[in-house]
């Protein structure tokens, strides 16, 4: 899809200005580095997934890894998503640290039996005798004209599931640091990357560092409202905030990075100062992260709120394929600016 490559580059967030000497690399490169480092330092780590050793190399994440670490540590799999999830669970229970990569989150829907009924529950069911240190990674497919079965951001469906951790990085720095943290974590961690961020470049430290799972971060400080969310939608909110439409509005912008476990403190702390909450998410508005964050604040931060909560995610409809329809389906700078203004008006 030649168009999409060019398009993605145009969508990539501009690199933030970096301090002298900082190294700027792409999001994909940062992820590839994380995988290589993890394979290097820990013999228990292995990487698998459909085509991880092919010329495409899973968006470039795995390019060269099989050659470097061998076919025992980096290998292709059959199209058997549910079994592969269970196989990773079994290997993880024996102390290995599998990293299972999928092209698209839609394929995770084939694995809910192993992911939800098994991987998430093993540690609980056997009272801590086994741990399940595995990472399941997938890239949200938006923007390839991919349509209803290839574009879904399904983390909202997993939000209720005890035992899983859910991570949606938003910058190259976090992509690397959260991948390394997820591999080091002793629980099943699902990472959803957003394809539209993957051409972005920014400062990324060399070597090993881990971004704590379960901790949000302020991307900006302000006083009129709190914008809370993750991934590409949060980037859109930042752009909206910078646009003329939001002139004069000052916002706290919190990148949750992890949606389970949720960093409740940072959300409540911010709302305590601003009194207004906008939740944004790349998944459906209804019943997902937006709903959870909104309800949380209405429950534990009610007295802090000075205005109705607002949420901006996807409408209650499957993702359409065509370009024109995608424009209407996905939130953008303009719709986000309207939501921000609406909340402060």
């Amino acid at each position: 899809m030649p168009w999409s490559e060019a398009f993605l580059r145009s969508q990539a967030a501009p690199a933030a200005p970096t301090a002298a000497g900082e190294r700027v690399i792409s999001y994909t490169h940062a992820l590839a580095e994380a995988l290589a480092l993890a394979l290097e330092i820990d013999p228990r780590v292995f990487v698998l997934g459909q085509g991880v050793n092919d010329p495409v190399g899973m968006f470039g994440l795995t390019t060269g890894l099989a050659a470097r670490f061998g076919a025992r540590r980096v290998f292709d799999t059959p199209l058997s998503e549910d079994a592969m999830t269970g196989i990773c669970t079994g290997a993880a229970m024996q102390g290995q640290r599998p990293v299972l990569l999928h092209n698209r989150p839609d394929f995770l829907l084939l694995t809910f039996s192993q992911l939800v009924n098994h991987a998430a529950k093993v540690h609980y069911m056997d009272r801590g005798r086994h741990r399940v240190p595995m990472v399941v990674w997938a890239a949200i497919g938006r923007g390839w004209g991919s349509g209803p079965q290839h574009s879904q951001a399904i983390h909202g469906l997993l939000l209720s599931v005890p035992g899983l951790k859910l991570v949606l990085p938003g910058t190259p720095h976090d992509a690397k640091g959260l991948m390394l943290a997820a591999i080091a974590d002793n629980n099943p961690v699902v990472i959803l990357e957003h394809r539209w961020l993957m051409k972005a470049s920014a400062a990324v430290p060399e070597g090993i560092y881990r971004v704590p799972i379960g901790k949000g971060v302020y991307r900006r400080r302000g006083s009129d409202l709190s914008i809370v969310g993750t991934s590409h939608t949060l980037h859109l909110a930042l752009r909206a905030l910078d646009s003329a439409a939001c002139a004069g509005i000052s916002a706290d912008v919190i990148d949750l990075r992890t949606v389970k476990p949720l960093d409740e403190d940072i959300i409540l702390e911010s709302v305590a100062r601003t009194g207004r909450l906008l939740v944004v998410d790349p998944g459906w508005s209804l019943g997902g992260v937006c709903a959870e964050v909104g309800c949380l604040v209405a429950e534990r931060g009610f007295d802090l709120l000075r205005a109705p909560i607002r949420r901006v995610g996807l409408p209650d409809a499957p993702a359409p394929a065509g370009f024109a329809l995608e424009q209407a389906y996905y939130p953008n700078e303009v719709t986000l600016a309207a939501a921000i203004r609406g909340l402060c008006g």
Partner: protein
Amino acid sequence: MSAPVRYSYAGTGYSPGDLSGYAPEFLLRLYREMLRIRRIEERIEARYHEDQMKSPIHLVIGQEAISVGACSALAREDAIYLSHRTHGNYLAKGGDLKAMMSELYCRKNGCAGSVGGSMHLFDVDAGVAGSSAIVAGSVPIAVGHALAAQQRGTGQVVGVFFGDAGVEEGVFWESLNFAVLHQLPVLFFCENNFYSVCSPLTVRQPEGVEIHRKATAFGANTMLVDGTNVLRVHGAVRSAVAAARAGRGPQFLELQAYRWRGHGGAGDDSKSGYRSTDEAAQWRQYCPVAGFGDLLRAQGLLDPDLHENMESGIAAEIDAAFEHAINSPDPDPEEITRFVYSP
């Protein structure tokens, strides 16, 4: 660094004996349909770089004999279900070319109103009942259609197309088991092109294990067919259709052919190293279209005029379809919330 030749053509090529028993018009129709699909795919490929077909495409060049051989053995009332590699089977079954091109161009009048994209081609009137972008996803749905046909006694048979990787999904075996158990009128068309994206069969299924033998062990009637030979395909499917229609249950056909182009998008990708350029070159010698044309010519059934006639007719149709698509309007934004629920 190029990969070794892993998968060689194992058939016998077209031979005059293949033609016996067929009326010349029928043979020419098969040829024309394959040629038409080839030309359509070539045109899509040629214009893909313009970035106006904003939809992932999966070209069927090299696999046309499967589409045409299979669909020519089905009645219009029979139904088929597609995978992600839709074009050839959609067209061979009689799917509307204009509606397909509009879908690829994301237009309002695309067969799925631009909601589905190239992986969701369908044309219910022509019996292209559905497709899925999830590998093996349409298999149980096709079996369900066959169940409905059996329950209602419609006499329909239902075909479902999927690739060699389709049989790696558990739902395929669940579906096959149920279809055999209930002796449903369903035809499983496994288009074995030996690759899933860039992954050869050997890294996905054990060597020595044959797909069609697995299906046999599940109780299906099975055949292994040269998928580059339109007459072999047609003959096999015709007898399978007859068996299914007579109530003899599901029929599984493993149809071997080669995908000449990359998995998705335009162009061959053998240079990237995952498969041997020699391998691709070998298979191109067994072109389902040219090979059949040569045979027809050798038998005096196809002359240059007739061929030229076909080519120009096809080209005109393609021109018109592209023009139709390109000049059609975008869908209305309100479409995104229509048809979420049925009244």
